[in-house]
């Protein structure tokens, strides 16, 4: 029982990371019906840039700089990979361009930071705190709080500021938003900036707990897509639930079956959900207009 509780606890922290990446998928999908196949690489770049900066300054000073970097990286992806393909209605274009940007980023990262995995210094003490027999690392608490904080911040922005409402309006109906004088192109660029920013943030949150390297992003991105699908690409709450489900499923599989198979539950879950309910567990199915 203690083991299970421990597994659930580490599953929660892992799950919140997935939720945060998935949240990024939702942001761009809502406003532009596209997503960044290189979302995992955005996380990876955030972690590596953070690693370099942390060598010269404290973790806390590094955080806002990584956020700015993430936003910039998102704008680059949108300008090069997404905007030109939005004109053609086919999805083929942006799927291939965001994939190609992802492999370019990964290759560049390998050349700059090398092929080996590096350790990221933890800003918080490494000794776990103990609650009811369960060991909780301070960093894990920070992950959960940090992820919730940033998602909350975006929610507040969407609800309170007129710019946030403009983003929601674009997500609801892009053409009608244009009629309001909203520059929907700028909204899409902004949502990509925000999306990569949250991914970069997730990167520096998880880096102290795992190995940091050029390959850390790819599988994370795919599994976070599972979470985004389970949560439904248009529901905010769903990603947190989905993330927790996946995180806990993975830690328990890794322990009870084998670590080689630990990536399998997430992928199987993705296939299963898409077979049964293509719109995701919490998603709304779109009614075809004929």
């Amino acid at each position: 029982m203690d083991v299970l509780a421990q597994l659930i606890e580490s599953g929660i922290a892992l799950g919140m990371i997935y939720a945060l990446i998935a949240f990024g998928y939702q942001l761009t999908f809502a406003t532009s019906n596209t997503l960044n196949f290189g979302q995992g690489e955005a996380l990876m770049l955030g972690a590596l840039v953070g690693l370099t900066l942390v060598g010269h300054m404290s973790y806390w000073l590094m955080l806002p700089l990584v956020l700015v970097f993430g936003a910039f990286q998102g704008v680059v992806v949108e300008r090069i990979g997404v905007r030109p393909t939005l004109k053609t209605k086919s999805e083929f274009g942006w799927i291939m361009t965001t994939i190609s940007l992802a492999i370019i980023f990964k290759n560049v990262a390998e050349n700059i930071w090398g092929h080996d995995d590096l350790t990221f210094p933890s800003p918080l003490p490494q000794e776990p705190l103990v609650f009811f027999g369960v060991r909780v690392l301070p960093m894990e608490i920070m992950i959960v709080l940090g992820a919730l904080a940033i998602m909350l911040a975006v929610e507040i922005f969407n609800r309170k500021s007129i710019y946030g409402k403009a983003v929601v309006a674009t997500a609801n109906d892009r053409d009608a938003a244009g009629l309001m004088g909203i520059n929907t192109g700028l909204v899409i660029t902004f949502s990509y900036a925000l999306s990569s920013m949250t991914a970069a943030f997730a990167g520096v949150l998880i880096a102290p707990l795992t190995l940091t390297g050029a390959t850390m992003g790819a599988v994370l991105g795919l599994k976070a897509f599972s979470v985004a699908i389970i949560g439904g690409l248009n529901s905010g709450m769903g990603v947190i639930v989905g993330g927790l489900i996946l995180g806990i499923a993975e830690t328990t599989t890794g322990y009870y079956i084998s670590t080689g198979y630990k990536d399998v539950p997430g992928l199987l879950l993705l296939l299963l959900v898409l077979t049964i309910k293509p719109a995701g567990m919490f998603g709304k199915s779109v009614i075809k207009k004929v």
Partner: protein
Amino acid sequence: MSLFKNIAAIVAIAVAASLPTMWSNPYYIHLMVVIGIYAILLLGLDIVVGYVGEVSLGHAALFGIGSYTAGVLGHSLGVPFLLTIPASIVVTAIFGAILALPALRVNGPYLAMVTLAFGTIIQILINEMDFLTNGPLGITIRKPIYFGHHISSADYYYIVLAALVMTLFVVQRILKSHLGRAFEALHDSPIASDCMGVSVYGYKVYAFVLSAGIAGLAGGLFTYSEEYISPNTYNFELTILFLLAVIMGGRKTRTGPILGAIIIVMLPNVLSDIDLFRKIAVGIAAVTVAYSIYVIATKQRSFKQMALPLLATIALAVSGFYIQDITGQRLTIFGLMILFVVYYLPNGIMGFLRGILLRIRPQWIHRHEVILEHGDKQHVWSVPDHPVTARGNLLEARNIVMQFGGLKALNEVNLEVKKGTVHGLIGPNGSGKSTMMNVLTGIYKPTSGEIEFNGKHITGATPSSIAGEGIARTFQNVQLFGEMTAIENVLVGLHHTYRHSLLDVVFHTPRCRREKLAARVRAASLLQFVGLVDLASEEARNLPYGKQRLLEIARALALNPSLLLLDEPAAGLTAPDIKELIGMINKIRGHGITVILIEHHMDVVMSICDTVTVLDFGQKIAEGTPAQVQSDDKVIEAYLGGTAAA
């Protein structure tokens, strides 16, 4: 295929067969074998990527399944080569069907993710299930021995060449047949596809299975070529390479995959030779600079538009001189190539060349098959697949409720359509007419209520099975297969008349030829009936709006329906065209086909309908003869807008 193409193909095969004697170096022979194997896989990948139009990130995994099937059977069980190869095809095809399951109801990015998840799972399984696959240690196997002679690399080249030629032949036959047309249809307009009896789910599975089987063949051949296989070959990088090859070579062509295979096999060789890379990079930069100067000077493009490509190519050339080893940048090069192809060469190299050829010698390019058969009056009409057994009412819809979230689009609607009549369905915008149409054709499943057609319950049936029962329709927002010609659109409607099997298609048996001919004559006759025979070879998206609507009618009639649903057929037609339309509908009724007609043009409705049902806010508010309905107060107020301005 034309004589010219046949001769060109024979010459190409002869040249290919003579290559090992020219370049007998085993290293080159091995390269050519790999090119051949990749080309086989890419021909299969093109079915999914080029024809069905989806991104597949799982083909490296399918390739791996084929390889490992051959490897495991050959190494652990000692199964001979001539059995392991067919086994690879079959096993991989089965996995293709498994992959198709989650891919059925999704498309675009979701489908790409499904294939990626599938590919990742397969790689993990191959790596972990070492009791079967030997895990990371891999499997070693030797080429087969026949009649005491050990097959050498040069011999193996001929085996692969034979396999490639066979694959080309089979794929060409399939894609030029009604099957290829079905794949294109489900990409162009899945809704119209389903409603014409070409089940989107069914053909998606078909495409994946075919593509997987071919990938399995390539995989099996690969095992014997390399004589050693291990899990990390079949990774994400390989799947990206395959995609790059198929897009860069040119989708929907047979030469594109071969060209693509050559490029991706030769690429690492170019990249490992830094001097060669530098020369090529500088060359590309020089060409880009020259082209930019030309295009900016003649004002075809602005500097801003050319800035990015200029910057990229010059940076590439310069970087070549700073880097000693380019293989570490391999993936960056692939990524840049994909970006380049997506933006500047969307139709690949072959597509680009065809475009040039189209401009200087248009008569050499046949984008679509030219159909020479002529139609006539006898072949317009044919017997429905399911004869009409109902006596009074052909269609009965009882208590239909259609609820979308909070909105009740149809509220307890009853509809009875008598056999052999033209039944009008009118009402203001938003009254539920099109929703009713969609419920009757299976696009929406009614929240409650029953539908009985020709004595059979069809409530909740899929659109393609309803089409099979004998109900055909046209669409309010035209849903033609835009990239196909007019006659090809009608041929999709005739899909149900092609009863012959895949083997018949491949071997072009007499049965296949007979059905093809019959369908073409029928299609030409139907076009004649709607007056579009002169535009038969015109792409549907280029037809004027009014003609597009007539084409939809021809396509719907191709289904041999007993019930025809027309959704605003007169919209966008001029007065003389409307007269012809009325004549057409009368003839259709004359041949025993029952018609349900949604229309706003009152004169059309009043002149040909036997009965008219009026809907408003999802409810039936009146029903009767046109004259009765015309003078009904409720109808006048709700629909014709008489006293609304009070």
